[in-house]
C-alpha cells in the first residue's frame, strides 16, 4: 500500500532484528494510515450527535436558517429550547417533562420483574434436579427467536377483551383506565424480556462452582437459602448486566410502548412522543434537537457509568452462546 520493499531489505530485516530503514518507514506509514482511518471513523460516528447537541443550544431563528457549524463563528447560546420542550405551555411544545415521568414509570418495574423472575428460573434450571429440565431450558432458549411481532395482536386483545374459549370467559378483560395502563406495558415488557434474561443469567449461574453448591447442600441449606445467600451475591455483576440491557431496551423502545401504552399523555413514554413530534413537526428543529437530548441523557449516563457490566453481559450473552 505504501512502499514496495525490495527483497534484499526483507533479508536484512531478519539479520538485524527488523530495524532496517525501509521497514521502519513502512511501519510508520502503516500505523499512520491506521491512525488516520480510525480517526475518520471516530469522527463520522460522533459528528452527527455532536451537531444535534450543539444545535439544541442555539436560538430558534438561527437554528432554522444556518448550519450548526456556524456556531463556532457566532456563538449564541440559549436554554430556551430545553425550557420549551420540557415545560412549554402549548400542546405542540412537547411537554416532555410529563413524558419523562412516564418513561420512568414504565421502565422501573419492567426491569425489576423480569430480573427477579429470570434469576429464579435460571437457578432452578441450573441447580435443581427435576425431570424435563433440559427440555424446558431448550424451550425457553428457543423462544428467544420468536419476534415480538408474533405476540402483539393477540396480547393486545388479551388485555382489551380477555380470553374467551367457546363462549366461556376464561380470563376477563383487564379494563384498565388512565395510569393503570402502565400495568399492560410492564406485563408485555416482562414477557418479552424473559427468554433472553433466563438465557443470560443461566450462563452465569450454571458456571458457579459445583463444590460450593454441594457443600451448601450438605450443610443442610435449602434451595431458597442457597439462592438468596450464595447465588445472588455471586452473580450480582450478571444481574447488573441484564438490568442495564433491559433498562436501555425499555427506555428506548418504541414499538411495545406504541401498542400497549398508546399515545395518551398519561402513559406514553418519551420515545412515542418524540416519534410523534418528528412525524407532525419534522421541521421544528428547536424542539426536536432538545427533545432528542432529553430522551438520550438518562440512558447515556447509565451506559457510560456502567459500561463495564454492560460489555461483560454483552460478551456473555453473545459469545458463549
Amino acid at each position: 500500500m505504501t512502499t514496495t520493499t525490495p527483497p534484499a531489505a526483507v533479508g536484512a530485516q531478519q539479520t538485524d532484528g527488523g530495524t532496517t530503514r525501509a521497514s521502519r518507514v513502512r511501519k510508520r506509514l502503516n500505523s499512520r494510515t491506521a491512525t488516520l482511518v480510525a480517526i475518520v471513523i471516530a469522527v463520522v460516528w460522533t459528528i452527527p450527535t455532536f451537531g444535534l447537541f450543539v444545535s439544541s443550544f442555539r436560538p430558534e431563528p438561527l437554528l432554522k436558517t444556518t448550519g450548526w457549524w456556524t456556531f463556532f463563528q457566532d456563538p449564541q447560546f440559549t436554554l430556551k429550547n430545553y425550557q420549551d420542550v420540557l415545560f412549554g405551555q402549548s400542546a405542540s411544545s412537547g411537554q416532555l417533562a410529563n413524558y419523562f415521568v412516564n418513561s420512568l414509570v414504565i421502565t422501573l418495574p419492567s426491569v425489576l420483574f423480569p430480573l427477579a423472575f429470570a434469576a429464579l428460573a435460571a437457578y432452578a434450571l441450573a441447580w435443581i434436579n427435576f425431570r424435563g429440565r433440559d427440555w424446558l431450558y431448550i424451550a425457553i432458549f428457543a423462544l428467544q427467536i420468536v419476534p415480538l411481532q408474533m405476540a402483539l395482536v393477540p396480547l393486545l386483545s388479551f388485555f382489551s377483551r380477555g380470553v374467551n374459549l367457546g363462549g366461556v370467559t376464561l380470563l376477563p378483560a383487564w379494563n384498565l383506565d388512565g395510569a393503570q395502563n402502565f400495568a399492560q406495558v410492564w406485563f408485555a415488557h416482562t414477557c418479552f424480556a424473559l427468554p433472553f434474561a433466563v438465557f443470560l443469567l443461566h450462563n452465569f449461574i450454571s458456571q458457579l462452582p459445583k463444590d460450593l453448591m454441594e457443600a451448601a447442600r450438605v450443610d443442610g441449606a435449602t434451595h431458597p437459602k442457597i439462592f438468596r445467600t450464595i447465588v445472588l451475591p455471586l452473580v450480582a455483576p450478571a444481574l447488573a448486566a441484564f438490568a442495564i440491557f433491559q433498562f436501555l431496551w425499555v427506555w428506548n423502545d418504541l414499538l411495545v410502548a406504541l401498542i400497549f401504552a398508546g399515545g395518551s399523555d398519561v402513559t406514553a413514554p418519551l420515545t412515542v412522543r418524540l416519534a410523534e413530534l418528528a412525524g407532525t413537526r419534522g421541521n421544528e428543529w428547536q424542539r426536536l434537537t432538545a427533545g432528542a437530548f432529553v430522551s438520550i441523557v438518562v440512558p447515556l449516563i447509565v451506559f457510560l457509568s456502567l459500561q463495564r457490566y454492560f460489555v461483560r453481559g454483552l460478551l456473555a450473552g453473545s459469545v458463549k452462546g
Partner: protein
Amino acid sequence: MNFDFADQAPKLMMLLWGLVAFAVVVGGLLFVLDAVPSFFARRREAQLVAASASGAPLPRRPKQREGFFALFFLMPTVLLLLIGLVVPAIRTTLLSFMDGSSQNWVGLDNYRWMFAEDAIVRVLLNTLVWVTLVPLAATAIGLIYAVLVDKARLEAVAKSLIFMPMAISFVGAAIIWRFVYAYRGEDQEQIGLLNQIVVSLGGEPRQWLLDSPLNTLLLIVIMVWIQAGFAMVVLSAAIKSIPADIVEAARLDGVSPWQMFWQITMPSIRPALIVVVVTISIATLKVFDIVRTTTNGNYDTSVIANEMYNQAFRYGQNGQGSALAVFLFVLVVPIVIFQIRNLRQQRREG
C-alpha cells in the same frame, strides 16, 4: 411553566403499586419457599423427639422433593411466557389464515396478497436490502475499527465513541440523522451537514429522504451507525483473546500486518464474527423505529416490521398483519439454525 405535580401523582401512585406488587410477589415467593421447608423440618424434629421419647422406631427421613422447589422457582417465568409469548404466537399463526376482522378463514389469501401486491413486494425487497447490507457494513466497520484501535493509546475512549450510539434509542438516532439529511432550498443556507458538504463541493442540495432507492440506503446508514459499536466490542474482545504466543510466533516469522490479519486474526475470531453477523441480522429484520421516525414508511422505504404495524394496528387488517409477522419469524429461523449448527461444529472441533 406547565408542569403540574398533581398531574403526575396518579402515575407515581401506579409506580408505587407496581413496586409494591413486585415486593409482594417476589418477597412472597421467597418467603413461602423458606417457610414451607422449615415448617416440615420443625414437624419432623417434633416427630423425632416424640419418637425417641416413646421409644417407637424413628420415622424414616423423607426424600427431598426437588420438584416442589423447581415448580415455584419456575412458575412465574413459565406462566408469563405461556400467556405472553407462546399462546399469542400460536394465535398469530392462526390469525394469519383469517381475514382482517379475524372472523372468517381465508386460507392462504394473506400470503398470496403479500407476494402479489406491488407495495408489499417492495417492502419485502427493502427488507432484503437491509438484511444484506447492515450486517456486512456494521461488522466490517466494527472489525476494522477494533483492529485499528487495538492496543492503541486512548483505546478505551476511542471505543466508547463508537459504542455510544448503542445507548441512544432508535428514535433518537433517527432524529440525529434526519438533522444530518435536512434540506433547505438552493438559495438558502443549508442546515443539514450532508447537503452542506454537497453544496460546498459544488453540487445541488437534495431532499435525501424522498428519492428512492437512495433513501433506503440512507436509513440503512443509521442502523449501521448504531450496530457497528456492538460488532466492535464483541470482535475486539475476540481479538484480545487470541493467544499471545500465536501472535508472537507469527511476528517472529516476519509476517506483515496484512498477512497477520488474514491468516491469524480472521481464523481466530471466526466464531465471534458469525455471532455478530447473526445477531445484527436478526435485529435488522425487526427494524421498525428508524423507518417509522424518518419516513413513516413512505417514499418506498417501508420494511416488514413497519408494514406489519401499519396493517394490524392502523388499518385493522389483523390477518395481513399476522401473515407479515409469521413471515418475519420464518425469515429468522434459518439464520438461527445456521448459528446453532456453527456452535455445534465449533464444540466438536474444540
